[in-house]
């Protein structure tokens, strides 16, 4: 049994330790939001967070993880599609086919954790996911809009605190 913490919940899985996290998420845990596309860590469709850092889950053997590490998938990003990136994505109609978008959003979310107001160069360096439909310009706008949404929420909270 390998013990893990996925989206805040402890799970125990009986699986060969060489199995990549991607396939355990999909096939053992039914978390199919995380996608397979290349299997060699290039395309980013399988991006999840491990302790808040973006990781390509197709390259992470299960045996390399332990139960103290927090794995977050797209299903655990927010309770109700209310992460600023999800709100921005919705406002700008970012997805086309949508297949790469969970990975795209998870890459962007890790970037925002690190850099709350990233420059275009930061985005270029961190969001290296492949999208064959070609959503890149809306992805970029979406990240910038998410920053504004976060700032707005923060201002509002500050305002409430003051009152």
């Amino acid at each position, binding site marked *: 049994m390998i013990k893990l913490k996925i989206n805040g919940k402890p799970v125990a899985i009986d699986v060969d330790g060489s199995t990549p996290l991607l396939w355990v998420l*999909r096939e053992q845990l039914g978390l199919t939001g995380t996608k397979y596309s290349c*299997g060699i860590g290039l395309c980013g469709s399988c991006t999840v967070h491990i302790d808040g850092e973006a990781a390509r889950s197709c390259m992470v053997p299960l045996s390399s993880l332990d139960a103290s590490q927090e794995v977050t998938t797209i*299903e655990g990003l927010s309770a109700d599609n209310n992460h600023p990136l999800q709100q921005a994505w919705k406002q700008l109609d970012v997805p*086309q086919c949508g*297949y790469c978008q969970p990975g795209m959003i998870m890459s962007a979310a890790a970037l925002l954790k690190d850099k709350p107001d990233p420059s275009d160069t930061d985005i270029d360096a961190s969001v290296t996911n492949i999208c064959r439909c*070609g*959503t890149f310009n809306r992805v970029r706008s979406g990240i910038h809009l998410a920053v504004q949404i976060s700032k707005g929420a923060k201002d509002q909270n500050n305002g409430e605190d003051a009152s």
Partner: protein
Amino acid sequence: MTKERINVSRREFLVKSTALGTGFSLGLSLPLASSAALGADDGASASALSEPEVNAWVVVQQDDTVIIRIARSEMGQGTLTGLAQLVAEELECDWSKVTTEYPTPGQNLARDKVWRSFSTGGSQGIRGSHDYVRKGGAVARHMLIEAAAEQWDVDMGECTVADSIITHEPSGRTTSYGQVAALAAEMFPPEHAELKDPKDWKLIGQPVKRLDTDDKLNGKQVFGFDFTMPDMLNAAIKACPVFGGKLKSFDDRKVSKMPGVHKVVAVNDDAVAVVADTWWQANTALKALPITWDEGPNAKLSSAAIDEMLDEGLSSSDNVFVGNQNGDVDKALKTAANKVEATYRYPYQNHATMEPMNATARWTKDKCEVWCPTQNGEAALEAAAEAAGLPIEQCDVYKIHLGGGFGRRGAFHDYVKQAVAIAKQLPGTPVKLLWSREEDMAHGHYHPITKCKLTGALDDESNLTGLHVRISGQSILASVRPEWMASNGADPVTFQGFQADGDHAISYTVPNLLVDHAMRNPPVPPGFWRGVNINQNAIYIECFIDELAHAAGKDPLEFRRKLMADHPKSLAVLDAVAEKAGWGKPAAEGVHRGLAVVKTFASYVAACAEVSVNADGKLNIHRIVAATDPGYAVNPQQIEAQVEGSFVFGLSALLYGECTIEDGAVVESNFHDYPSMLIEEMPKVDVIVMPSGGFWGGIGEPTIAVAAPAVLNAVFAATGKRIRQFPLANIKLREA
């Protein structure tokens, strides 16, 4: 209308409904939990198409939810939303309560193809169905108002409707679509339905939000590859990597004891699959499986040999077909003051959808069901029935969301046939087949390879007097749709962008013109690839026109404009991008511009690219201004998304796209050697949507065609270097 007639109509409707057969209707956004629930009922439930249906296109529920049925497939291009807008425009319903569902191709067959074509290719989604889906909405509106009028016992001419609320004007009484839908469902449809004048459209032309976004933001959207059902097994497959090769033998003793493995099966005569509890287990075992192939006659095929074949065709008179001809090109070339000649080459390319090919099949001796992503549900159904060895009435296909199509999942259902062939060897057990990326790269239906020699004649005053375009290379139709070829054996698709008239007409008037095709068909399977032949043909004509302008010492815009007097709509989009980009005015330091214009898929598109090439030869594409005239623009913000995305697809092809052939197989195996462009390479795109009305043009493909030539012409402006071989990744843009 008499009650009797209503009753007859109702009976007919009920007969039709029960004839739908059994199966699942999956809807468009199926959370994992409900997909499991659907599987759990073991397929015995009745079709889950929603009720009550006013007609085949429109269902209205009591709470005023309007469900619009969509026959074409949504694969990112936004057609689902656009088609719903078309229906809702005529229906006059409350857009905020609109949702959609897919009928199955089996249901379509059972109801005499009431939903017409399911085929989603050729940028046909909107332009190929706008009339009958709008009519579906208009007829449903009529029936709903008629039902209200009957309920009130008033003349329906006194009733009006807006946002699903019907009002009897003289009395001020109101009711809603939901309240009268059940009665409307019993009405006879009217004989005639008038469609609105485009000037009265309220919803068509509006940049409304897509209907299918929410579940794409949180992982809930079920793609074919996410589909699951109880007791389902997973299969990984390997087909002979050499085109035309066969499976000779495999030794399943080496893998049958590996974790999770259930069975190793031969698939058709050219592939072997491992079936296991999970796909990871299946693929792990497949990699360890000893397989012997009979590589067949193509074992020594190479890109070099294919190039020789095409080179021969550039000057041959064998198997040559004329696509467009006027005047006397030979004479024009003989009497030219200046003759310009150039030869281009465009490589094989793979669709490389982000979601690899997959399908889930369950076979019994009485029934075969397939759950799969497909651009053409009907073609998937035919493939399933053929592979199942069952009458088509005993089969059905449930369309699951596509993780990209690009033409790969329309004409070809090899993955469906394989899934059924595997499931047939485990009767009653559902099996999901997923191709690895490597399998996807090895067994595409590739963008065909062609070369093109262009010869132009300029007179003393540098006017273009003659042009001969000789295409040499592969025909898609000869391999894929021979029944669509011309009676003389010509493949009209080869001439996209060069035709005398129609959806893919040439944008220039040349007094002496000959466009012909030496058909040379290497044994590599070709396919329709988003944009199809216009992608390379636009490079050929638009880069060569630039070459001619340069030879003539003329500005590329002015040189084109002179040839476009009879092509005002093409000229209008070209002028629009030139003006917006500031053509003729100085660009930023080191930045150079290039133009391209085509008519294709019945739309007019143009682009002006702004690029720089640094001293090391590194290309930077700064901005592209793009204009589209699709006649009518149903959803301008989705058109913008398609135009932007088209540059990613077109520029990825230009920068990186090549499948090379060695020893009869594709060399490239994954995104490391078949890259796709990334966000850091993406230019700013300024989109001009300029619908001129009066026709319906396509959106999903046209702009791809202008991406490469606009950039290439800008690269020439920057470097003085003409690139005639692709991809650019293989070319030094500046000499060291």
